[in-house]
């Protein structure tokens, strides 16, 4: 079975990433999960960070009795048995681990298998909190999910890392979509910005791929069109910070050719720090706080969109969004 394809009744898989550590990935994942659960959805939050995992702390689970490491180490292959309860009704958790330095991320093939299993969990939503960085393991969760949410803050370092993340996701998706050695090599070359062929932009790459094979060019365009990252700006203080989301969306469209969506923003709010100290999502501990209102708004938007039965919130899309970024499975990379 193709892990990218949602079956009817299957949970919707939403991955939260953003490249840089500390921009609020875990905060956003924990709060969206909690807000959705409070809105009556059955939610399972999954922490795929196997080194610095702390989603469990953000959700008020002090010491999860089991974690995803059990699956990665093949000690437990039934994901349902790794799910633990949280203090929030309707919200359950598959924790990551902080200390198993020996536990490597699963290889591509195993990740695909894991993603397929995540889709068979009994829930309405599976929210995946990705670790920092742009390792292929992180990218796969981001790319195969129904929704990939990219979190950034209004700081140069965060925006740079967000693009690094987006670029890595973009090229990985393209490489997985290419079916010939030549075009795959072209994508690899394009990832190296100093390449000799002068492929600098995604458009340069598309041109080179089309020259090599028009059919591959079509696959290229299809892979780009079906990739729809969603942006969340965290730590907003001014209207200019709010506008950053529109600016990044514009760069996504004009430079990458990606139809990114600006999902929402969350303001800077002391209540978020207070909630972390209280080891609770802010939507639970301070539901009237400004940040909680923003977070609930984003959660509601996602739920409403799903209820309306389409992936894009803002305008009609030309064709239903294919859920899989990849053509038929191929051997592990």
């Amino acid at each position, binding site marked *: 079975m193709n892990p990218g394809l949602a079956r009817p009744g299957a949970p919707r898989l939403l991955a939260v990433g953003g490249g840089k550590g500390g921009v609020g990935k875990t905060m956003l994942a924990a709060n969206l999960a909690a807000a959705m659960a409070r809105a009556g959805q059955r939610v399972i939050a999954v922490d795929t960070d196997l080194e610095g995992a702390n989603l469990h702390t953000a959700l008020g689970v002090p010491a999860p009795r089991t974690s995803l490491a059990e699956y990665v180490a093949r000690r437990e292959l039934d994901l349902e048995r790794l799910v633990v309860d949280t203090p929030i009704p309707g919200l359950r958790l598959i924790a990551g681990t902080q200390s198993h330095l020996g536990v490597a991320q699963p290889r591509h093939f195993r990740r695909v298998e894991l993603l397929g299993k995540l889709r068979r969990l009994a829930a309405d939503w599976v929210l995946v909190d990705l670790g920092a960085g742009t390792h292929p393991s992180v990218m796969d969760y981001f790319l195969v999910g129904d929704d990939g949410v990219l979190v950034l803050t209004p700081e140069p370092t965060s925006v740079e890392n967000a693009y690094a993340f987006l670029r890595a996701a973009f090229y990985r998706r393209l490489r997985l979509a290419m079916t010939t050695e030549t075009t795959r090599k072209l994508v690899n070359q394009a990832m190296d910005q100093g390449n000799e062929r002068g492929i600098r932009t995604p458009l340069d790459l598309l041109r080179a791929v089309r020259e090599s094979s028009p059919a591959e060019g079509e696959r290229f365009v299809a892979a780009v069109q079906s990739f729809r990252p969603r942006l969340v700006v965290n730590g*907003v203080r001014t*209207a200019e910070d709010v506008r950053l989301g529109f600016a990044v969306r514009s*760069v996504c469209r004009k430079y990458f050719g990606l139809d990114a969506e600006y999902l929402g923003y969350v303001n800077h709010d002391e209540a978020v720090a207070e909630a972390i100290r209280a080891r609770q999502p802010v939507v639970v501990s301070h539901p009237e706080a*400004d940040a909680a209102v923003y977070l609930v708004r984003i959660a509601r938007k996602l739920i409403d969109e799903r209820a309306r039965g389409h992936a894009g919130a803002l305008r009609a899309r030309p064709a239903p969004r294919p859920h899989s970024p990849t053509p038929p499975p191929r051997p592990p990379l």
Partner: protein
Amino acid sequence: MMKSLAEMDHYEVLEVPRDARPNEIERAFALVRAAYEGDALAAYSVITPDEAKLWRERIDEAYRVLSDPALRRAYDEALDAAQAAPPDDEVDPFADGAGAEETAAPLAGFVERAAPRAELPPAPEAPPVSLAAAHAASPLRVEEPPRRDDALPRDLEAFEEDEEAGAEWTGARLRRARLLRGLEIDDVSRATKINPTYLRFLEEERFDGLPALVYVRGFVTAYARVLGIDPSRVAPSYVARCEEHRRGRPRGRFLGRPHAPAR
């Protein structure tokens, strides 16, 4: 999608739909233009300064045409004509160097300045389409879509207050509505002539720093008006909060919420 700057029409450049209202075009222009300004946060790490300059020129050109009702009408007709014309196969914009111009033949006057790289011809003096031609084109066209011009731009409606109508208007809610509309405190201050410090006190509900109730009512009314929200929805609710506080309700509120009510 996956188009070079030269292939995009003006609507795609400004990222607005074909039926965008004038205020949506104004706003889209301001947003998109700012994205490629100087060392703007969103673009500097992705595109070179030269590319940014080209993009700004292309954006300016798109705005120049779409913000002028006559030019826009003429441009729309040219676009319609281009779409109605049977396509010469699927024109591959990368087929050869002149591809972009061929694709855009009916719009050549609009597009030629948007050659993707460097060699830009000097900006032509005359607008690509004469006003007379534009007027002759469609004298009877309805001027504006029926939407109110101060309505929120459509791509922001999804962000609009989701609290049920009639919910209390707090300082935080005022600020949320302000940020949603892309306004800074100083913008509101300029428009209302209210001291920015008072506006901050309003948002932070520092009621003790605000003047007499009658002024607070005036402030909130002016503030709501600038946001395009009916003041009669906002002022009574906010003033009641302020009044309640001054009658000696519990202190220690920050941003309109009781402090740390962990539950």
